[in-house]
């Protein structure tokens, strides 16, 4: 984890109340700091305020109380468009964020909004489409793409805009396992190439497991945060918060009760398999 790097997202005492919600606060005095280049996963059950938080960051929801500073720029009426240039956001429904009539048109949409010159636009669009591995589909209409492909196009649209922060608002939750894998792979690869700050709002525990840090939200507040290994070790407590524990963790807990020696850190499925088959190996 990058410890002394600059803070790219600073949120202090954020409160948000939806109209007609009977004074129930969707965000209740939320304070979060995220470093540049960090990958943070925000997990929490439905209604925990995670999507509200994501939408507050780029001013899609009005700031009611508290302060948000993105890359040194405080969020306000005058700065909201500048901030939206710094944040790329992928939403849940692959169909409902596809604006263009073809793949290339959709990738170009954000650039058109910024009034970028056509020559620059063309190179950036071609490059972005190549990065997500959709070059063969440049002229395709969205109706002829799978959900995973549409989400990759959405990612390309963001890459073309070259923002500093990528927010995934449950971007993989409507995809089949294959599509989810494709999209996550693309994000991993992007993260490596660009060192963007990634903020993923997710239900998917495997997606959260790839993060540097996990923040658990409940009732609009940060309940806990830590590395994936630290968080997944909570087991029962996670389930009490309505969250699922990754399968290797459940297995680990079950084996521990049977007095099988187990390591304390988080193991992915593969590493768990490796651990198990070498458990009694003396080599």
């Amino acid at each position, binding site marked *: 984890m990058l410890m002394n790097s600059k803070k790219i997202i600073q949120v202090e005492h954020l409160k948000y109340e939806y109209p007609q919600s009977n004074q129930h606060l969707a965000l209740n005095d939320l304070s979060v700091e995220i470093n540049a280049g960090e990958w943070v996963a925000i997990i929490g059950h439905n209604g925990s305020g995670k999507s509200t938080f994501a939408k507050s960051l780029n001013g899609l929801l009005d700031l009611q109380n508290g302060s948000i500073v993105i890359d040194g720029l405080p969020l306000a009426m005058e700065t909201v468009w500048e901030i939206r240039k710094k944040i790329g956001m992928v939403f849940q429904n692959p169909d409902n*964020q596809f604006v263009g*009539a073809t793949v290339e048109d959709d990738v170009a*949409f954000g650039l058109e909004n910024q009034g970028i010159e056509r020559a620059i*636009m063309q190179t950036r669009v071609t490059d972005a489409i190549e990065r997500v591995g959709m070059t063969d589909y440049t002229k395709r209409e969205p109706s002829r793409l799978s959900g995973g492909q549409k989400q990759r196009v959405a990612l390309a649209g963001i890459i073309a*805009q070259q923002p500093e922060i990528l927010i995934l608002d449950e971007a993989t939750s409507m995809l089949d396992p294959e599509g989810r894998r494709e999209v996550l792979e693309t994000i991993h690869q992007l993260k490596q190439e660009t060192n963007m700050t990634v903020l993923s709002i997710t239900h998917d525990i495997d997606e959260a497991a790839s993060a540097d840090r996990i923040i658990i939200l409940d009732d609009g507040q940060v309940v806990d945060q830590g590395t994936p290994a630290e968080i997944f070790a909570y087991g029962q407590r996670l389930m009490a918060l309505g969250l699922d524990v990754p399968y290797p963790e459940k297995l680990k807990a079950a084996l521990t009760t049977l007095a099988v020696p187990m390591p304390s850190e988080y193991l992915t499925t593969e590493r768990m398999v490796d651990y198990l088959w070498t458990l009694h190996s003396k080599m």
Partner: protein
Amino acid sequence: MPGDSILHRMDPRAKLVASFYYIGIIFLARSWPAYAVLFVFTMSLVLISKIKLDFFIKGVRPLLWLILFTVLLQIFFTRGGHIYWQWGFLTLTRYGLLNGAYIFMRFVLIIFMSTLLTLTTPPLSLADAIESLLKPLKAIRFPVYEVALMLSIALRFVPTLMDETTKIMNAQRARGVDFGEGGLFKQMKAIVPILIPLFVSSFNRADDLATAMEARGYQGGEGRSKYRILKWQTMDSLAMVAMAILTVILIVLR
């Protein structure tokens, strides 16, 4: 219809303007030689497009009853010239027959020409052409960019909403709704449980789309650049010249 003829590659603006103009000047023709010229002109365009004649004939079929009705009306109710046959208020005259034949030709030519336009031009290009042609209206504060974006989004969502309709219909069938059965009233009633969910989900989609567009920095049409551009080529100017020549020929032959 994908293809690679000269017509496919023409600027959609040229095609749009030329097609509408052509439909206008068809009404200049009032003699057989004029119709012969128009017929040859249209048929050569069909040949150039390399699209099978079947597609054009299919275009005529849905309008067959309208054409028949109009032609018969012309034949039986136009008076003048030699009377061939008479029965009560129905008369069959020379002018009647002639007018009927002209109307029939007009219909066929107009349908062929508009089919040619839609078969050689993708809907999105047509939307671009409309945007470009409407640009002068910006002077009277007509929201040209917004209308064009609405048009292209509407086109983009047609297949999505069709999928959705199929899904809803299947869901309703699974609950025992019978489509296409019973009287007219019953059939109309069966459509309600399709329309309402479709309406609700369209609004949800629109809401999501607006949020996504805003997140990507959409602030209205002003200050936007264009990714797709239209190119006016020599071919397009030539098409305009051809239209002018055709007009002169029709005026001479009328």
